[in-house]
């Protein structure tokens, strides 16, 4: 048989080999998770291990749903992430704009205070934040999940850096046209700072979606927990029933993975931006 396509020489064969081995290491755990999530408990603890389940056990998925208010928790995580992201991006861009473009007394000192807050690990705020939530009667509510996470000194810093590098001419032109500071912010600076806001937003989304410690502390009612804390309690219930645990892990990570694949380009450039400016 004739082969009509001329074989192309693969460029950088060694690089491909290294990267492929690496890729197996990176992706292998996901494949194993998927495979186990469809096995019976007996299959999962057999030696040698089972690679393909004899017949897919969808009951593991239903077990997860009956053990956890999983739909609720997914909504909680989503709401928490959206609220924190919108809050941080909005408040940080306002404050960042003020620091970058407005003259006022005490600006240097105030900015210094913001900068030093970025250095404090967030566990240090945890106890008092918990007490604030308790005093406001917000424990075990959705609001408790996101409220303290809506403000960010780091976000303000990032946005200030972004505003600083925008050209000043447009702003001056607008000022000559009689626009006030809010109008300048809203009509001109905000649209121009979209890449910076996306960069910050992406970081907040990842941090917020993954956050475990704070939810663990404020919300003990499973219906008010995000998925991360829900998975922790699933482990408490199904200690070493790995098929069920893997099904839960898969369900919990799937939504973000899908979002990631769809918005990949924005995400990557957002992270790259924070790396250059941070």
């Amino acid at each position, binding site marked *: 048989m004739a082969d009509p396509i001329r074989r192309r020489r693969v460029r950088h064969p060694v690089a*491909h080999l*290294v*990267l492929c081995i690496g890729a197996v290491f990176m992706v292998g755990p996901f494949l194993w998770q998927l495979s186990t999530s469809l096995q019976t408990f007996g299959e999962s603890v057999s030696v040698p291990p089972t690679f393909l389940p004899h017949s897919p056990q969808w009951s593991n998925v239903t077990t997860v749903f009956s053990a956890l208010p999983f739909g609720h928790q997914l909504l909680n995580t989503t709401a928490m992430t959206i609220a924190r992201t919108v809050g941080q991006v909005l408040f940080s861009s306002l404050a960042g704009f003020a620091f970058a473009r407005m003259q006022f007394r005490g600006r240097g000192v105030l900015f210094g205070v913001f900068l030093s807050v970025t250095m404090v*690990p967030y566990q240090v705020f945890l106890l008092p934040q918990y007490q604030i939530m308790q005093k406001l009667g917000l424990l075990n509510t959705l609001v408790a999940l996101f409220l303290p996470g809506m*403000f960010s000194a780091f976000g303000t810093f990032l946005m200030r850096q972004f505003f600083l590098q925008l050209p000043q001419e447009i702003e001056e032109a607008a000022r000559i046209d009689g626009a006030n500071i809010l109008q300048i912010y809203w009509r001109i600076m905000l649209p121009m700072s979209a890449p910076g806001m996306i960069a910050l937003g992406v970081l907040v989304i990842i941090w917020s979606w993954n956050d475990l410690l704070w939810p663990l502390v404020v919300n003990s009612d499973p219906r008010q927990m995000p998925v*991360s804390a829900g998975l922790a309690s699933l482990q408490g219930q199904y200690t070493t029933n790995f098929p069920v645990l893997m099904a839960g892990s898969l369900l919990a990570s799937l939504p973000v993975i899908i979002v990631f694949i769809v918005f990949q380009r924005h995400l990557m450039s957002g992270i790259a931006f924070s790396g250059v400016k941070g």
Partner: protein
Amino acid sequence: MLLLPAAAGLVVFEIWPTFQTIYYSFTSWGAFGGHTWSGLENYRTLIADSDVVHAVINTAIITAITLLAVPISAVVAALLSLPGMRGVTIYRTLYFLPVVTLPAAVALTWKWLFNGDYGLVNWLLSKVGIDGPHWLSDPATAIFAISIVGVWGSIGYNMVIFLSGIRGIPVDYYEAAELDGAGRVKQFFHVTVPLLTPSIFFVTVITVINALQAFDLVYLMVGQQSPAIQRTETLVYLFYQRGFAEHDGGYAAAIGVLLLLATLILTAAQFRLQRRWVHYG
């Protein structure tokens, strides 16, 4: 005033709490609420507490091992940046997957992989004649297992930072190096690495800060009942355990202050040292 929302939020939720935590570190808490001034009592307990010593050492080990992800990611990014490289998007996506996966899910999955009797890791080791340990419940190995997961989880993020850093390196540097007869490896060490130092610095700082805050993996992969807990507990884990499981808020606050000091010292040290090795183009 544009600053107001952010400033008010920070004062209420971060700045005031910082001072409150410092105050709490000098108090002693009752089981169902209430606290009284106890002076340096917590700090006296702290320096004599073997758990705290373990936590500091463990946190340092985790930080050190997780830093291995930095050179690995640099190599991956350099390979992906080779001229004419194919499949870059696919590789990038695959390497980035761990970053967007819920750490809780990551922890459970790796806990399963590291299971001493039925885990895939030990089965693979047995194929090459190695009798693998009970990674997560053996005090000697648990911290390494956790750190490996830390490396696995941070390669993708570092890689993206490095990729954009490499893209900023002018092509003529490589062309010049090539004219000098430098091979790919030599180019990596003499062009890529020096010009990438600002990104390397950034990634290092982030890695150290994240490693100092390690909690999820210890909480989910080891846990309080494990014989390996003393050899894996981190400062944040101890903070959670004392403050929220054992309701000793005063002592937890003292651990929080220790964590704050560690972060400040390490970050300051890195910024000082950066002058020696970071080249800003």
